[in-house]
């Protein structure tokens, strides 16, 4: 296994490069993705190497980015749309919900909606408003879509390629606060399937599930918890829709305790979904109610106080304490 160390941003860039190399029908489209390489430089150098016809600088209109990607899909192309920031995906919401999610069905399977919508999501980079949102549940709810999120450079490298190759439309959520963190990338083979959840750390007391930027925070919490005598099992959901319940059920059946961590607010979130579903599947094992550690029910705050909004090690440990506090 030959691995190379690179940042998540670079891993995505390399993954996209391979996708472009492998299949001539793959296109990238988005605002400022050409010469600038995107505001996060994820597409750096790709227009230079693959041309303006394959790495397309878009006029500034998200509905059009997604809507034309639909037309390109009908023509047999696979477009990876970059939405510049999470908060700018909403102008495209109609095209995503009414068309991207439904055209495979409406055409009786004739159209393949093999497109990827890349969303740099979650907060933590000190940005201004609309640049730190967690809209994943809007998409997870929507039948016809799939939603995934990477948390490591290796996953980023492989998942973006797997997503491009997949025939269903995929909302690809990238934890922008982790773009610049390095990790080992195996250039030879993917660590997991695109729709697999992964146990990042085994433990016996509490199952803690998260995704995207939260995974690292949870792992840190697990370190601290260990020193306090609690053993956390950490699961990186990776696929948010569909959920890969297998490893989660196995874990909760073992630990009997569940905490879900997410930056999105609680209401009707992935966290709600995981707790509702796992409470059902693991009813007799649950020694405490599943708890969520989430963003608060407020618009994402100004970034000077975002740390108080985002799930922290402390808040995760507090939830762990609470589930451990239930009599069983």
């Amino acid at each position, binding site marked *: 296994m030959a691995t190379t160390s690179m940042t998540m941003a670079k891993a995505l860039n390399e993954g996209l490069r391979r996708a472009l190399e492998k299949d001539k029908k793959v296109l990238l489209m988005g605002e400022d993705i050409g010469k600038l390489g995107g505001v996060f430089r994820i597409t750096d150098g790709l227009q230079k190497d693959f041309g303006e016809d394959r790495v397309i600088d878009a*006029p500034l209109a998200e*509905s059009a980015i997604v*809507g*034309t990607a639909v037309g390109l899909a009908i023509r047999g192309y696979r477009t990876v749309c970059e939405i510049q920031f999470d908060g700018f995906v909403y102008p495209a919401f*109609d095209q995503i919900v009414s068309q991207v999610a439904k055209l495979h*069905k*409406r*055409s009786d399977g*004739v159209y393949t909606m093999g497109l990827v919508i890349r969303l740099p999501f979650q907060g933590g980079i000190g940005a201004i408003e609309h640049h730190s949102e967690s809209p994943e549940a809007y998409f997870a709810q929507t039948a016809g879509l799939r939603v995934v999120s990477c948390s490591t450079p290796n996953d980023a490298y492989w998942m973006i390629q797997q997503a491009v190759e997949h025939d*269903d439309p995929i909302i690809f959520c990238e934890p922008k606060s982790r773009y610049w963190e390095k990790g080992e990338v195996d250039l030879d083979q993917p660590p997991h399937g695109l729709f697999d959840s992964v146990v990042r750390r085994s433990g016996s007391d509490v199952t803690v599930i998260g995704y995207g930027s939260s995974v690292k925070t949870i792992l840190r919490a697990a370190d601290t918890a260990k020193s306090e005598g609690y053993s956390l099992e950490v699961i990186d959901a990776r696929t948010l829709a569909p959920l890969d319940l297998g490893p989660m059920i196995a874990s909760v059946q073992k630990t009997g305790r569940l905490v879900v961590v997410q930056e999105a607010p609680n209401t009707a979130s992935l966290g709600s979904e995981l707790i509702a579903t796992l409470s059902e599947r693991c009813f007799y094992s649950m020694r405490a109610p599943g708890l969520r550690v989430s963003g608060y029910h407020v618009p994402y705050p100004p970034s000077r106080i975002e740390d108080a909004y985002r799930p922290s090690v402390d808040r995760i440990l507090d939830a762990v304490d609470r589930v451990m506090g239930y009599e069983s």
Partner: protein
Amino acid sequence: MIDEKLVQLLTPEGERISHPQYESSLSGDEILGFYRDMVIVRRLCNESTSLQRQGQLALWAPVQGQEGAQIGAGRALAPMDFTFPSYREHGVAWCRGVPPEDMLRIFRAVTTGGWDPQKYRHSVPTVVLGNQALHAVGYAMGVQRDGAEEAVMTFFGDGASSQGDVLESFVWAASFNAPVVFFCQNNQWGISTPSTLQSKVPLYRRAPGFGFPGIRVDGNDVLAVYEVTKRALDNARTGNGPTLIEAYTYRMGAHTTSDDPTRYRVDAEVEVWKHRDPIERVKALLAREYRVKGSTFDEVTAEADLMALKLRDDVLAMGPPDPISMFENVYADVHPLIEEGRREMIELGISGGAH
């Protein structure tokens, strides 16, 4: 009301008039063919309306009055062109070869689509106003990348012209010089909303502000629509970019069978437009200029009646799908929630699970 710039080659009375830029290239046989198309499409529309009244369709969106616009546009297409309709383009679908019974599936509420869009090169209906305009531009960008000499045409109404998606599609078509023709049927109404609320100036004038030509054609003059559309499609195919065609026409029927137009428009208006009927004027031309006989017209009517009979049979034979079909083609690949739903439905005995 009617712009002097309206392209017209045939008066409402069926007399030819000349136009500085356009002249009809059609033979008598071709015009007779268009006549036949229009008669059949109107018959299809009437039959569907009665099927709906008899409870056999959930809904119907009449096309009556717009046959000239749709047949003129539909017949201007080359086989390899691709079209993106809204929900009222039965005439265009007819030209593309979509079987009438397939057009009615959506209205019988047994599907959300109805035909194979790749086979007929005519996309599935789009109900959300304007969404399809962006699909057309995207498809056209694909045509460019393939280096193909094909054109793309999309249809929308005067009402839909106010939607952001339609307007963004103008921006994109211009930016990428996409081989696309925007065919706007200004039928004066968007349900109860008059087209004058969508724009105080003729809609075709929007195009130059985005950097491509707009043209208004008498939508009830199938000869003019044909020529105008043909040229626009040619321009698209040869790298000369997009065109917006505003076909000035009239929705003679209700918006749909659920609608009650007496609430918002006066009969007199409909009467005026009856005199501009797209079918009558071609018939007059054929009779006078090409000496087409009554018996020929009768044959067309008979053919249309036959089509209607078959259509009725086909529709009545369309039973509800097995409920379990709702799980098909939601995803291209396996999906646990689909499996779960399928299982539940079988367990509940709602479906035998044959699918």
